[in-house]
């Protein structure tokens, strides 16, 4: 086997001065594959800012993604990163975390990946209060595969598999997360970059299952199929129609087609994490003989 790396386009020229985020990105793979005006890049910037502000040892932070446009995030971040199968990012992250509980595990995936095919893992990880942060990028559609209807598509919205308009009721992700037991739930749009960064920081520092939903523009599919204009038009829509209501009842957070989007931090509560509950219970039953599980 003498052939070296296959991808032999020359590495991009280093830019002087470098962009502040470059240390956190795999610069040899930039520019990324996301469309112009895609909100995923903005969300990654917010995440990278949050990590920088926290001043953590980044060797101990892992990113796990699934399949889809947002699933590609793992491939662009310079951390121990995993691009796994469709819907199973949370289950994979469970293994990564339990294998080495000292790591900080972040699941960065899309609405279809996390809530549709990954729904089962989402609700159980929330129920168990598995210690991980889930950043759910919600663009209301399955973009990577060409614009199909998603469980978050607002009613009457068009998609390639709902050519007469979606008639199903979509999931309300903050409500789903709350009712399954998540300890931190927030929703922002890609426009609210500073508040999003703060929320991500809070979610990362919070032990337990924290969910940050980010409403992002998808101009090429959601925007185009529904004649909503460019990505900038979608951002302007967020500007005019997002309403900040911290602590709102998550039952009221449904997103309807082109109506107000309620954003904010909704849930911030305390519960023992999976490992805390495990160690506590086994100590109680086995007494002195039990050595709490902390990894190696």
């Amino acid at each position, binding site marked *: 086997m003498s052939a070296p790396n296959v991808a032999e386009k020359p590495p991009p020229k280093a*830019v002087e*001065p470098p*962009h*502040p*985020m*470059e240390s956190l*990105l795999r610069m040899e793979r*930039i*520019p*990324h594959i*996301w*469309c*112009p*005006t*895609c*909100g*995923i*890049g*903005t969300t990654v*910037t*917010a995440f990278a*800012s949050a990590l920088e502000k926290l001043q953590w040892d980044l060797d101990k932070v892992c990113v796990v993604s699934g399949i889809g446009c947002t699933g590609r995030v793992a491939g662009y971040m310079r951390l121990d990163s995993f691009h796994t199968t469709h819907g199973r990012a949370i289950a994979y992250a469970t293994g990564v975390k339990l294998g080495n509980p000292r790591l900080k595990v972040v699941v960065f995936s899309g609405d279809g990946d996390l809530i549709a095919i990954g729904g089962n893992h989402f609700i159980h990880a929330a129920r168990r209060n598995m210690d991980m942060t889930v950043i759910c990028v919600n663009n209301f559609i399955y973009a990577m595969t060409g614009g199909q209807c998603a469980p978050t598509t607002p009613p009457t919205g068009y998609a390639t598999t709902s050519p007469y308009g979606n008639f199903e009721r979509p999931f309300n992700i903050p409500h789903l997360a709350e009712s399954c037991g998540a300890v931190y739930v927030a929703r922002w749009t*890609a*426009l609210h*970059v*500073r508040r999003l*960064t703060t929320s991500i920081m809070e979610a990362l520092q919070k032990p337990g299952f924290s969910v940050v939903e980010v409403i992002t523009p998808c101009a090429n599919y959601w925007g185009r199929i529904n004649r909503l204009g*460019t*990505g*900038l038009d979608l*951002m*302007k829509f967020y500007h005019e129609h997002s309403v900040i209501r911290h602590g709102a009842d998550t039952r009221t957070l449904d997103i309807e087609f082109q109506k107000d989007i309620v954003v904010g931090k909704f849930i911030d509560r305390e519960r023992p994490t999976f490992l805390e509950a495990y160690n506590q219970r086994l100590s109680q039953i086995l007494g002195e003989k039990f050595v709490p599980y902390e990894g190696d």
Partner: protein
Amino acid sequence: MKYWRKPLDSDEVKVPHGEVHIILDRCKGCGFCVEYCPKDVLEMSEEYNAKGYHPPRVKDPEGCVQCKLCEMLCPDFAIFVLPKEQKEAPVEG
């Protein structure tokens, strides 16, 4: 900024000043930075970059206050702001 009288602490308050850097060939012409700059420092240029998009250009270099909103909003890591030396806030009495 117009005040009806000069603020008593105008010597102490320094408005940060920033230098906008644009990585032209990374830009995909989305327009977020131009739209949301609070000081209206940027505009879309007429030039094309290597990918065929119109990148932004800095039309008012002195106006940047290093808020970094462009840097945070940009989906392509194509624009960022570095601090310049801080100046006293110009006060018009």
